[in-house]
């Protein structure tokens, strides 16, 4: 938490120091719910568990216009997110972090392409200690407005998760299941359907480490796993495994503007993951959030 705060303060100080621009301060406050039909990321029927979470978030920080043309924006934000799961309380978590985003518009005007780069770091604490750790992510990409209604975007990035690790259970297999790294690509678009309604679609592909939980029977092995640990969240016989996997995710979203600074945001996500041995798991999630922006 201290490290997050330090990163945020240093970044804000650097921005103030390099350009005496007047900053806008944006604060988003949101609350909502999330339903996940496979919170364990399990492959087989009996290990598939669904759950519902209440969520809340606060994101706040300055946006600086750099340079002389207003085409370069630096956004800094501190970020607090909380999830409270109803059936599997060990998944409940709070994350505190910092984000930094740089956006460069290529030219003057509304229809110009943008290049952007983002970085974020957060500390996440679960009710189940094995999942505690750090989340880091960097990405970069481009955004292209097409006419008055459509924004297209494409980005590539890397993220890391540094977990606390557990006690080694299997000789030769570490228990640091939540030490993970992945690369990802994402393309998508945003359609302004009406003055109040915008629709979003995103397709992303991820390659790297993934974890899933399954009940292990005597005699089962952990073939293909690069780490394994006991996962008490899903019962005494449940083990969480880390594997190399690729996954594809489709996200469909809709944002309904309730006023100048508030939106009701709904989204559906479908993720399908594959390991070298074949299909790993599929999961779907529905989210609904009310987000209010204070400027």
């Amino acid at each position, binding site marked *: 938490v201290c490290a997050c705060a330090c990163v945020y303060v240093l970044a804000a100080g650097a921005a103030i120091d390099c350009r005496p621009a007047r900053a806008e301060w944006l604060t988003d406050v949101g609350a909502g719910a999330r339903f996940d039909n496979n919170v364990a990321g399990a492959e087989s029927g009996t290990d598939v568990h669904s759950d519902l979470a209440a969520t809340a978030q606060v994101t706040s920080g300055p946006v600086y216009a750099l340079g002389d043309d207003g085409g370069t924006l630096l956004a800094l934000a501190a970020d607090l997110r909380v999830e409270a799961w109803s059936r599997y309380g060990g998944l409940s978590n709070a994350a505190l972090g910092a984000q930094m985003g740089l956006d460069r518009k290529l030219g003057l005007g509304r229809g110009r392409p943008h290049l952007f780069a983002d970085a974020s770091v957060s500390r996440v604490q679960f009710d189940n200690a094995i999942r505690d750790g750090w989340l880091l992510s960097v990405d970069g990409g481009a955004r292209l407005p097409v006419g008055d209604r459509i924004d297209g975007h494409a980005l590539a990035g890397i993220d890391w998760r540094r977990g606390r690790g557990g006690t080694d259970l299997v000789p030769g297999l570490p228990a640091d299941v939540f030490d993970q790294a992945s690369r990802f690509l994402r393309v998508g678009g945003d359609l*302004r359907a009406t003055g109040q309604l915008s629709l979003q679609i995103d397709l992303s592909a991820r390659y790297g480490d993934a974890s899933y939980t399954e009940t292990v029977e005597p005699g089962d092995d952990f073939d293909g796993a690069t780490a394994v640990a006991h996962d008490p969240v899903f019962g005494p016989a449940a083990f969480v495994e880390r594997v190399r996997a690729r996954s594809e995710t489709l996200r469909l979203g809709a944002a309904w503007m309730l006023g100048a600074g508030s939106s009701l945001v709904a989204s559906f996500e479908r993720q399908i993951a594959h390991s070298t041995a074949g299909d790993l798991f599929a999961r779907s999630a529905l989210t609904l959030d009310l987000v209010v922006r204070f400027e």
Partner: protein
Amino acid sequence: MRLPGGVDAAFVALFTRIAWVVLIVAVPAAARAAEVDIEVVDGQGRPLPDAVAIASPANPGAAREVARPPDGTEVIDQIDKQFVPYVKVIRAGTWVRFPNKDNIRHHVYSFSPAKRFELPLYAGAAAPPVLFDKPGVVVMGCNIHDWMVGYVYVSESPYFGKTGDDGRTVLANLPPGDYAIRIWHPDLIAAEESTARTVRLAEADARREAWKIEVKPSLKPRRGPSETKGLGYH
């Protein structure tokens, strides 16, 4: 005798007499002027605010008025990251100031053929006024806040108005004669010229004219949060 500032007293007296003559002649002329009460509704019959009505005179007498240059400087504010007003009607030859009343900077620009201009990042009243000397529609934006859009309608005629929330405006002080009255709106689907109609006005005429025009659904760029992840403008 010379007054302070070097002004001759005889000149002042002459000027005063001329002013009285102009007033005596002009007041009856104004009393004879006509007016047109204009109502604009959309395709569903709802009052349409921010519609511009322009009356272009066909007769020479009114045309002399058209030739008179406009006075003063108009103002378009930037308040709460919006252009205020959203639509401004001015005569060609008018200077417009763009004070920024937000506590952040804006970067105002336009690429419209009627007026291309750019006011680089500024705060307060630091930007110089802009001369709008060519009739037409000028679309303005802010290079930081892409949702900020405003319109300046630069009219070749001095007879114009903009509808309020009730969809109405009054074109007053129109000298008698023939006029082509047309309507423009930021979301107008048809060409502006297609809304034109000819109206003949007699002395002290008080006419009422109504337009029903088709407009596109308003698609002002969003300014609220649209995703639950992250901040900023993308």
